[in-house]
Each structure stands twice: as C-alpha cells, then as structure tokens.
C-alpha cells in the first residue's frame, strides 16, 4: 500500500497515456475517451506531441469530468506509462495518491516507483507475445489490451467499447473480432489478477446530452462548406493541415453534382503560402468564396498579399491555427500568439478583422460567417483558432444551420444596375459606411470595369499619388473598419453574482478554463465580471466594460499579452488598469493557473474579498 491514501473519485479524474510516437496508440486512446463519453460522462482529451514523425514521445490526456469542465485541469491521477524514455518524468507527474499503470513484463527496480502512488503492473508484452506472432499485430493489439485492462480497473462497461469497435470496423468482421478479442484479453487478465475496480471509477451518468465530439479544424472546415467556400488553396503546416484535409473530405461527400459527378469546388495545394493566399485573392476578386488555412509562419509569408487585400479591398478568409512562435517556435504546441501579427498584418497602416471562436461549434459558425463578412467588408477575415481547439476533440453543442439562410455577397453592382445608370466608382463610399461597390470581371461590355491595384487611386479606381486622394481613401478604410464593429460577433458578458469593481477579459480556447476558474476564484472569495471577446475590431461594449471596472485582468496564451496591447492601442486607455495574465509554455492554459494568478494578484493588491468584508 502506498503511504498516501489512493485517490478515490468517480467520473472526475485525469488519465494520461505516455506512448511512443508511431506505435499506433492514438486510436486506442481515442477509443478510451469515446467510451467514457458513451457512459454519459463528459471528457476533455488533449494530444500532447512533439514535432516529429516517429519514435519520440507522445502523450494523450483524458480529463474525465462529470461537471463538464472542458479546459485542461493540470496534474495526472493515473499515468499509463508505455514509454520507457519518459518514465521518470511521467512518474513524477502523478498526483500524490495517484496510480501508475505500466507493462510489468520486465521487472522494474523499486527505485523507479514512488511510495505515494499505487502501481499497477500488467504484463502486456508477455500477453501479446503469447497471443500474436506478427510484430505489427503485437504492437497494435498491445494498445487494445491495455484498454481492456483499464476497462476492468475503471469499472467501464465492455459492451460500450465493443459497440464502438463495431462502429469503427463496420463491414470488416475480421478486424472487429480480433480487436474485441484483444480487449477481453486485457480485461480478463486484470479481473483475474488485480483488484478491480480501483479508486478511480466510471459510473454511468447522463451529462453529455446531445453534445457532439469534434475537432475544431474539422468543424471549421465544415463551416467553410456550409459558408459556401468553393476555392481552397493551402500549403501544409502544423497545426492547420487538417483544416484543408477535412474540407477536401467534406467536399467529396457533399459537393459533387449528382448528374455529372463533377466537383462544385476547387482545392489546390499551393507551392507555398504566398501562392495559396494569391490564389485565394484571385478567386475572391473574381467573385468566388475562397479561403486558406495556415499557422503563424504562413501568416508571415502571406503578409504582403494581406496588405493588398486590405488596400485593394478584396475579400479573403484565412484560418490561422496558432502554434507557439516566433519563428519555428514549438510547432506542435498551442498558443494565442498571432494576435498583433494578424491585426496589423503587412506594412503601412493596416487593420484586419479577427474572429475568436471558443470551441468547435463556434469555429463552425464563425467559419461560415467569415465568408459573409469577407464579402460584406471586402477585406481579409482571420479565423483565429489555435492548436488546442484545432487538433483536439472537444465536446460542444451540436452544429446548427438555418436552411433559409442566403449568402451575403456584399455590395456587388450587377449589369442591370450599371445599365440603370447607377454611378459606379470602385472606391466610392455611396452609403457612408466606408464600403464601396464592386463589380465582378466580365459583368458588362462597356460599364463597370476597373483596374485593381495596390497603388493609390481615386474613388473611381484611377491611379493617383495625390496626397489628399490617398488620405481620403485611407479615411474611408477607417470608416469601413468602424462599420465592421457592428457586423462581427459581439463580446459576451457574464456578471458576478455580486457587484464587483473587477473584471476579466479572455477569448478563444481559454474559455472553458476561464469558466472553471471563476468557480475557483469565487471559492477563494473573489468576484469577477467576465467579458469574452469574440472579434476584433472591438465592439463599443469592450470600452464600456473597461470603464465600469477599476481593474480588468486580460487572460491569454502568449508572452506579451497581445490582446491587452490591442485593447490599449485601440481604446486609448491607461494600461495600468489592464492586468496581464499570461500563460505561454505551449500547454493549454488551466483553470488552476488562472485562479492562482488572478487570486494572488488580488491578494497582492490587498483587495479584501467581499465575503470577508461582509462578515
């Protein structure tokens, strides 16, 4: 028995799998997460992997959370240690009273364990070697065998896993039966040789509801399909590649003409990011809905074209799945570190629209909306995801679509309108909102054509380097950006139960950790009003929120508190009132981190918690 009482928890713990990249563990680990979901218990899984192909360590963490906290928690209650290389680090990361599950085929010296944890050894290699002769089978089925053992240890219903295997290998009976066999090999061994279940248990619940389990990149790609994107040009880069791959997959299913079999889309893997955004701009200029997906280094390469899109006023959608920078940084680690780079991308005075979805459901909605916004505003729209949302499955509300919805193609002057004698000036602010009309190439034999260029021009698209003409155009672009404030998704505010002088601003993938942190802070006696920013330009309610609070914490996942910089810059407020709370080690921010950072700061300010003041 360990010298620390083993953790006992039902439906609320963290299991982490330590594997070797390329060992085929991913599908077994995901099966584990899905099986818990099928028990009606929410999970929040995360891939933690280095930037290599094979041989180096990879981890998969499953937070089991009946309370529905979908952010990372921090700490590990049970480590499934399948990688000798990372053994010491993995064992060290287990919470006191936690559990270590390992392959006990080869005996380990006692010094390799800890006294305050429960060690569970299963001779996985011995079991697989005695059952299978093929080396690949030995490797793959070892993963299913440890899944079977966990099934017994955590008191999971094996029928649930069998059903999932059945769905996965539908029509492939041989694979189905062999996987089920391996599952029971592990489960039976555990039941016969170990004390099952342990203190960590899965108990059937009804807390998942109708929610779905999907990766942000896939949801964003689906949003592009529903939003009417017909041209996608991209260049592979982690962690965004799966956006284009999912878009390709969705299009193959839903976008072929039933009579001819021909594609109602065009997808080009560009030679680089420059070509990809160039293709997007060319297609959008010609009236198609087009997008690219990339990450920070890709944005760096695209900035010249992004400036053209801004100045020449051409729609474009860029999905930026952020990773840790600068330069190559940590390609497979998450951050929210491209805020400034995207907001002001390119040389000269530029400002771009950014959208910050919090989860896959919003990634779908915002992706679809981004094409309306791009055409409405005739500019680049950045959909700002990050690796944590993009490459991890997340539980979220079902995706919804209104069949009555028509696409907003923005201000497009047609041949009929030109024929009516409407005055067409490509950069003429007809409505006072800063948004001009455009025409598509080929619209009319004699009217409506114009020359698109990155050089300065007058309201009728005639080349001009006259100072007042240039300034007039730049001021109209400012008006257009102001118009955007009311078109983009508004911030969502949630007030504390009691009035407070303190607020917190956050965005994107920080959302679930923030929601959970609020509870931890309340338990510590701190009340905070919350504002979740969903887009840049900032709606006027951001300035109101700042005015209403003495101090506002800005929680984000980058070193330099980039959103805070943007808020200060765009609202002209005293930066002292905005307190940066930053997390940037490449792991997803946790509720524990936020609650500690804000709580400590409040204590440091010698802010008396309201609860104590009342008492």
């Amino acid at each position, binding site marked *: 028995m360990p010298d620390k009482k083993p953790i006992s928890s039902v439906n609320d713990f963290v299991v982490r799998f330590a594997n070797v990249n390329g060992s085929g563990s991913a599908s077994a680990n995901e099966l584990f997460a899905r099986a818990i979901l099928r028990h009606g218990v929410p999970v929040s899984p995360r891939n933690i992997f280095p930037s290599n192909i094979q041989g180096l360590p990879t981890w998969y963490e499953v937070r089991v959370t009946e309370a529905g906290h979908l952010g990372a928690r921090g700490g590990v209650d049970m480590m499934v240690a399948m990688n000798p290389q990372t053994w010491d680090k993995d064992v060290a990361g287990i919470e006191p009273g936690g559990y270590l599950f390992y392959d006990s085929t080869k005996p380990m010296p006692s010094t390799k364990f800890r006294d305050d944890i429960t060690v569970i050894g299963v001779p996985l290699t011995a079991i697989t070697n005695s059952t299978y002769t093929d080396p690949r089978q030995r490797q793959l089925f070892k993963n299913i065998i440890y899944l079977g053992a966990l099934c017994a240890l955590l008191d999971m219903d094996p029928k649930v896993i069998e059903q999932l295997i059945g769905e996965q290998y539908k029509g492939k009976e041989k694979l189905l039966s062999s996987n089920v066999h391996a599952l029971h090999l592990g489960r039976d061994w555990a039941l016969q040789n170990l004390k099952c279940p342990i203190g960590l248990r899965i108990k059937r619940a009804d807390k998942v509801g109708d929610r779905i389990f999907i990766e942000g990149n896939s949801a964003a790609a*689906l949003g592009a399909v529903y939003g009417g994107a*017909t041209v996608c040009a991209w260049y592979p880069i982690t962690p965004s590649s799966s956006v284009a791959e999912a878009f390709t997959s969705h299009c193959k299913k839903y976008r072929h*003409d039933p009579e001819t079999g021909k*594609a109602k889309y065009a997808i*080009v893997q560009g030679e680089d990011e420059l*070509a990809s955004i160039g293709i997007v701009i*060319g297609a959008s200029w010609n009236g198609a809905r087009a997008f690219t997906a990339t990450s920070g280094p890709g944005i760096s390469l695209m900035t010249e074209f992004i400036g053209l899109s801004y100045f020449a006023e051409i729609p474009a959608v860029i999905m930026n799945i952020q990773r840790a920078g600068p330069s190559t940084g940590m390609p497979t680690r998450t951050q929210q570190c491209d805020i400034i780079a995207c907001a002001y991308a390119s040389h000269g005075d530029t400002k771009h629209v950014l959208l910050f979805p919090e989860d896959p459901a919003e990634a779908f909605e915002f992706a679809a909306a981004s094409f309306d916004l791009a055409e409405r505003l005739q500019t680049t729209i950045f959909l700002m995801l990050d690796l944590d949302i993009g490459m991890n499955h997340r539980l979220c509300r079902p995706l919804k679509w209104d069949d009555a919805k028509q696409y907003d193609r923005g201000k497009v002057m047609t041949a009929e309108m030109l024929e009516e004698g409407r005055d067409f000036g490509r950069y003429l602010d007809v409505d006072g909102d800063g948004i001009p009309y455009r025409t*598509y190439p*080929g619209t009319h034999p004699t009217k409506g*054509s114009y020359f698109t260029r990155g050089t300065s021009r007058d309201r009728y698209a005639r080349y001009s380097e006259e100072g007042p003409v240039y300034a007039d155009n730049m001021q109209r672009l400012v008006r257009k950006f102001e118009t955007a404030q009311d078109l983009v998704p508004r911030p969502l505010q949630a007030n504390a139960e009691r009035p407070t002088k303190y607020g917190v601003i956050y965005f994107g993938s920080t959302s679930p950790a923030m929601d959970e942190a609020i509870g931890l802070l309340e338990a510590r006696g701190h009340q905070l009003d919350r504002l979740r920013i969903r887009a840049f330009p900032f709606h006027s309610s951001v300035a109101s929120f700042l005015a209403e609070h003495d101090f506002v914490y800005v929680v984000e996942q980058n070193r330099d508190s980039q959103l805070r910089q943007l808020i200060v810059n765009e609202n002209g407020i005293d930066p002292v009132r905005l307190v940066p709370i930053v997390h940037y080690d490449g792991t997803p921010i946790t509720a524990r981190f936020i609650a500690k950072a804000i709580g400590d700061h409040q204590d440091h300010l010698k802010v008396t918690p309201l609860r104590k003041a009342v008492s």
Partner: protein
Amino acid sequence: MTYIAKPKFHHPGLKKNELGYTHRDYEGKISTLCAGCGHDSITASIIEACYELSIEPHRVAKISGIGCSSKTPDYFLGNSHGFNSVHGRMPSVLTGANLANRDLIYLGVSGDGDSASIGFGQFAHSIRRGVNMTYIVENNGVYGLTKGQFSATADRGSKSKKGVTNTDNAIDLVAIALQLGATFVARSFSGDKTQLVPLIAAAIRHKGASFIDVISPCIAFNNHAGSTKSFDYVREHNDAVNRLDVLVGRDPIAVDYAPGMVQVVEQHDGSKVALRKIDADYDPHDRLGAMTFLQKHAAKGQIVTGLLYVDPEAEDLHEHLNTVETPLNTLEADALCPGSAVLDKINASLR
C-alpha cells in the same frame, strides 16, 4: 509619362470585326512607358490579336505583377477588368481567378524580373498545373523601374548601361516552360508584329497553359552596345523557326498557306493553328525536339523565335480538378450548402 486623355472619338469608317468592334475598342489608356519601349509594341500586338479573334473585350481578365511590363494591361482592353497584383505573384492570382470563373479569357502579363526572379516559383507552378491562360513575359533582361539592374534573364557576359558585366548565367524561361509541361510554348520579338500577333492569337485559343516569351528591348536601360537584348542585337541574331497564322473555325480563310509549306494544328476547341515552316525539319509537336533545338541554337548565340511546341490535346486545371462547367463564382447556397438535414446526420455521427 503622359497624362493626356485619349480621345474617345471613333472614326465612323474604322474597320470592324465580326462582333462589330473596332481596334479602338481593344485599346486602353495611353501608355506611360518610355517612348519606343518594346512593351508598347507587345501591347499593340495584343490589341491586334484580340481584335482579329473577335473577342468580347470585357470577357478578358488581364492580370499582372509589378514592374514596367506589369503596367501594360492598363494600356489595352480598357473595358476589361485588370489586376496589378504584387511583384512576381501574377500566376497565383490568375490561377485563383481562373478557378472562380472558367468562362473568361485570362491574360497574364509579366516581366523577366517578375517571372524569372521573385516569381520564378509561381511561374513554374502555374505552368505545371496547366492553368488555362496566356502567359506573356515581356523580357528585356533588366529592371527598368529601378533603373537598370540585371534581371535573371540577362545573358552572362552582357553589360549593363553602367558598364558592369553580368557574371551570372541566364534563365531561359522557354526552356523551363518546355520542361514543366507547358502545352503551348513560343518565343518572339516585340518588333516582329507579323510573328507575334498570330502567336498571341493562337495562345489565346489554346486550352491550357500557353507561354510566350517576348524579347522586348528596354529603350532606357538595355539598348546599348554590349547588351544582348537591344534592338540591334536581336535583329542580328533572330533565327525564326516558322511563321504562323491563326484560323478560327468560323473563318476558314487560308490565303497564306502554300501546299507543302503549311502544317495545320487543330486545337481542342476546334480552332486551327497553321504553321509555315522555315526550318523544314522542325516539328512543333515534339517537346524533346523543341528542347534540343532551343539548346542547340542557344549554344550558337542565336535566339529562336516562333511556336516551339504545342499540344493540341491539352487539358487544363479545371479538367484536372474535374470541376463543374458552371463558373464557381455563380454558385449560391442552394448549390453549395448541404443543409440542416445533412448537418443533423453529421451531428449524430459525432456522438
């Protein structure tokens, strides 16, 4: 530079083409390039070719990068949409535009700085993808707008206006285009309108990636002794492989084609390119032969002009991608959106 507005008056007696358009309908703004620039001659040839083909001017999208050559789309087809993008990136913008609407005619105009240096990659990839376009490089071997630096097509040993000798090897865009699978490859000289106009016309009619490298002397910075792109040098070293005319299907006139001296190439859309060979051994269907021919003459210091290669069965990018005939930019929600019922099924599959 000139800011004189071009008069809109059309002489009533101007000759009209099949669609009733005159040459004036294919013109653009007055050129702001140096008087005598070879690029203006190319502009005139484009105007002539479009007039002869009876193209609706507004059905052309003319796209360029940055530089002297890239300014020229402003000077022709004034009723067309033009796009002066960024340096060297014309091919990607054109590719995107083409994907959006396959029904328009795409003219890409570029320069040697644009295509052989900063845009070398984009040039190569647009060619290998088979984008249906006419890609014209106005090649003067020099950076004119920045006053005379060598470009990547400048020959080794040639001298700049300041007397500097180029020690780098030249990139031959025609050789590269042949290697990359361009299905229409030609080279011409801006001063040889007789050759250039039908070449442009044939390139426009060709379905696939058409590439024409046009040697175009820079009157300001590359027309001096020691230059290998000057008027005098090119006239002296021009070795035309053939002469060429375009026969559009609806216009069967064949006045220039003497029996035994003409090779008719039928293109995918039915139009025919008739080649009058000067070199009796030259076969424009032989890609490898074209590459060899080119290299052999290059070794002699000769500039080969004419239609070097054409594949009459060429496919374009849209065929590679199997896209619908309807231009993608006209498709709306009813054709593109799978709808809520499908989304419900997708949701169900994700639980």
